């Protein structure tokens, strides 16, 4: 049986750990509510862009743009959104596993795909697997604004336009609720399913022409898709971390309870033993 002091030490250290996890839980909870409101603020922009893109795609059928046309796929790019830090439960491992399995099952040789990562965990994972990483973003703030991610989005869209790859998929955790996040795969480019987005369409005049507008609008649309996924991913990250830290705190509490129980038992056993010894000693004297 462990000594009294050992048990005491373990109780103290577990208590300290639980204080930390409790604090982290509360920090994540407040970040989550901000991330949720960020995601909400983005919705009107996205809806509007989607609506206009759909109107143009449907209304001006003769207008085409390289980003709307599927071309033979020689190279596929995967954008995987993870976090910079761990301690977020299965947040990172879920999305990495899904992305990695998809890559393994779709491609035979490493020449057929490239990866872009957001977050340190994703970069380290793919670097270890010796996957060709063409871009990675580290140190994304907890409440990203559009300017923060402009670089990776415009790079992704630019590389597609230059023909560096012919398809772009995104992997991220979709925020369902504070306790549930879903790994989601989304095809960003080419924009093949645009026309099905909206049903209340307006027929617009285009100034100067539908093509010129697509030229401006489609890169923005693709960038917005990526930005939306990042916001979604951030909300999921905070939610996952909050849940993970809550269960860590709960587990610590349980551990402390059972440790205090064995501490009390050990103390009682020591007292009983002392009494027995004293009684034994007295008896020996008589």
């Amino acid at each position, binding site marked *: 049986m462990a000594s009294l002091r050992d048990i005491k030490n373990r109780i103290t250290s577990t208590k300290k750990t639980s204080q930390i996890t409790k604090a982290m839980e509360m920090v994540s909870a407040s970040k989550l509510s901000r991330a949720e409101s960020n995601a909400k603020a983005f919705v009107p922009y996205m809806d*509007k862009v989607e609506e206009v893109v759909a109107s143009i795609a449907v209304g001006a059928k003769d207008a085409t743009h390289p980003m709307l046309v599927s071309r033979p796929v020689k190279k596929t790019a995967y954008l995987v959104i993870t976090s910079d830090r761990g301690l977020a439960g299965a947040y990172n491992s879920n999305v990495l596993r899904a992305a990695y399995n998809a890559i393994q099952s779709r491609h035979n040789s490493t020449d057929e795909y490239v990866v872009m990562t957001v977050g340190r965990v994703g970069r380290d994972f793919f670097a270890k697997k010796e996957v060709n990483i063409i871009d990675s973003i580290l140190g994304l703030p907890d409440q990203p604004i559009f300017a923060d991610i402009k670089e990776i989005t415009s790079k992704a869209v630019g590389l597609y336009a230059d023909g560096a790859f012919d398809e772009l998929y995104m992997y991220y955790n979709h925020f369902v609720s504070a306790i549930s996040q879903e790994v989601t795969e989304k095809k960003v480019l080419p924009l093949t399913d645009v026309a099905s987005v909206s049903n209340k369409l307006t027929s617009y005049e285009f100034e100067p022409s539908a093509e010129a507008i697509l030229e*401006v609008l489609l890169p923005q649309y693709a960038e917005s898709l990526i930005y939306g996924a990042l916001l979604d991913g951030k909300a999921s990250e905070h939610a996952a971390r909050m849940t993970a830290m809550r269960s860590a705190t709960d587990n610590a509490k349980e551990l402390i309870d059972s440790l205090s129980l064995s501490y009390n038992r050990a103390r009682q056993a020591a007292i009983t033993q002392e009494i027995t010894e004293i009684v034994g000693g007295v008896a020996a004297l008589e």
Partner: protein
Amino acid sequence: MKTVKVSIVTPDGPVYESDVEMVSTKAQSGELGILPGHIPMVAPLEIGAVRLKKEGHTDYVAVTGGFLEVRPEQVTILAQAAEPADQIDIERAKEAKQRAEENLQAKQDNIDFKRAELALRRAMNRIEVNQYNR
């Protein structure tokens, strides 16, 4: 006077919402003035100011990378960044302008040159719009 509803939306949330008598701005094809009841139209915008006339005064909003969507009763401006004149951080804009100017002087590289030029235009736009701040 008839008014049209205007909203300026960015990825970071709505920036401006109001009923105005006239919207005027610079599109890539030239200056545009929109009055209530305009036919549906879409046009990409230059980096520049959007002027919103209402009740005898004019609001100014600096807009970057946007386009304009017009309907008879509603005008929407979608932009990657937009700031009303009174919310522009003038110090930051001045710093950005100076940085861009230095880059323009120093760099010969084509891509960096373009980027610095765009940055300069954004900064100058912000400084200019800020002057209309009442």
